């Protein structure tokens, strides 16, 4: 990730590039002057205090919301609606899955609209569910599964789409600690195997450092990019080893300082 990206098109160009992005609800400016980019296959975590506008930012990145200033380019194209090649995993699995569809149909449904034939839908949804370790639950209903498993279904739904990037809005906020660790490792595994870029919003600094290649700190009122911190921890990450590294603690306190620091003009 770099601040002030080069031209968004062409080979070697970033996958997502954000320029001068700002959003206001009426007179209330939520964030402004955001400039950053996400490379292909990069894992970026966005952290910031609650109410800083992380979800609004994701809305703008995914085209669900129209920003009041600036532009987002995805794969060289200006984002208006959600671009092909971008899939979203929502925060609350219990509300983002359809209780009337089986696990397999939940995953296959978006493919249907995308014009994928029935046979391929069946194959691709089964593959995606195998990837997240749910090969044995194709015919269950989501509400028959645990919370962590339901979020896996939501992740599989995103993967079945063969996206270049997945955007996740606090995806592990409503599961217990052990499940959370499992899901974190699952997302890392998926990223490594499929080379998908991930943008993940979290308010948990530990989680951000553990997962990310780069942590983007969003803070202030209106919010701006306070820091872009490359995470130079060895890969693959490991729940025990990585979190015991002295560097892990350093990065964590560095990020914490940025979040707490009162707004100072950096321009």
């Amino acid at each position, binding site marked *: 990730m770099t601040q002030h990206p080069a031209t968004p098109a062409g080979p070697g160009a970033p996958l997502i590039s954000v320029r001068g992005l700002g959003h206001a609800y009426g007179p209330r400016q939520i964030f402004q002057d955001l400039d950053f980019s996400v490379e292909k296959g990069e894992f970026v975590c966005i952290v910031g205090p609650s109410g800083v506008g992380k979800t609004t930012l994701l809305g703008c990145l*995914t*085209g*669900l919301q129209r920003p009041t200033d600036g532009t987002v380019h995805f794969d060289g194209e200006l984002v208006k*609606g*959600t671009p*092909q090649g971008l*899939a*979203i995993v*929502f925060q*609350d699995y219990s*509300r*983002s899955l*359809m*209780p*009337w*569809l089986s696990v397999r149909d939940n995953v296959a*449904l*978006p493919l*249907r*609209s*995308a014009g994928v034939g029935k046979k391929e839908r069946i194959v691709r949804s089964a593959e995606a569910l195998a990837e997240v370790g749910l090969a044995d639950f194709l015919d269950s*209903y989501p*509400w*028959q599964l645990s919370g962590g498993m339901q979020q896996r279904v939501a992740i599989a739904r995103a993967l079945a*789409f063969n996206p270049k990037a997945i955007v996740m809005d606090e995806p592990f906020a409503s599961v217990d600690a052990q499940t959370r660790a499992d899901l974190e490792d699952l997302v890392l595994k998926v990223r490594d195997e499929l080379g998908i870029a991930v943008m993940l919003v979290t308010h948990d600094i530990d989680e951000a450092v553990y997962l990310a290649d780069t942590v983007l700190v969003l803070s202030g009122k209106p919010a701006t990019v306070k820091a872009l911190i490359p995470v130079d921890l060895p890969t693959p990450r490991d729940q025990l080893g990585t979190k015991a590294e002295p560097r892990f603690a350093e990065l964590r306190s560095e990020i914490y300082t940025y979040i707490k620091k009162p707004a100072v003009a950096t321009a």
Partner: protein
Amino acid sequence: MRILQRIAWEIWLPLVLVAAWWIVSANSTDTYFPSLHAILDRSRELWFWEGTREDVLPSLRRLAIGYLIACVVGVLAGLVLGSVHWLSNASRPYIEFLRSTPGIALMPLVSLVFGLGDSFKIVTIALVCCWPVLLNTIDGVHGVEPQLSDVARSYRMTTADRVRFILLPSAAPQIFAGARTALAIGVIAMTATEMIGIGGGLGFFTLNASTSFDYTGLWSGIIALGVVGYILNKLFALVERRLIAWHYGLMAHSQGGN
């Protein structure tokens, strides 16, 4: 065994009441309240099978056509009104007014236009049945989880797929609740239209028996109407359980803790 037990629980009280009726009315000499024995004899004679062919089936046919029209119109209009907010706001007062107007009050007007034959009956049934379906469909569509709309939008789902796989199933439990109320009202409308219309049917039979001093016939008609209503309701519940099995599963699941 389980099933037998359930049936036993459901019918023991009706059985007791029928037995009581039987015993109390056994030696009745009152012309208006004949003995149950006489009524049942008459019912057997009437409904197996000539009366069923001549009165019950035509009644059911009218009810079925009127009811189906009401369901289709109610659901389609409900989907549109539920999805388009300004339209739903604009039409709310009219809908509230129309559905508060007793459907039976429309019968004279409808008969002016359609006469007293089958179309009058079918139109009246459709008119009174469509309101609960329409209102419940609108509410059901309004109640669709907003997050699912975001999911649909972000995965670029087509409108047809959204309606078929998100809107309709999500609203289905409420649509069914409305359709069930509509069915009960439909039986009432069927009976009432047949009482003032021409061309037979259970309602006509019952009223006609009363005016021609055939009181066992009158009671047989009332009982037949009750049985028809009961069976229709049971059939409806059966269909509902099948079509929205997921809903009952989900309810049972969330009540069971977890």
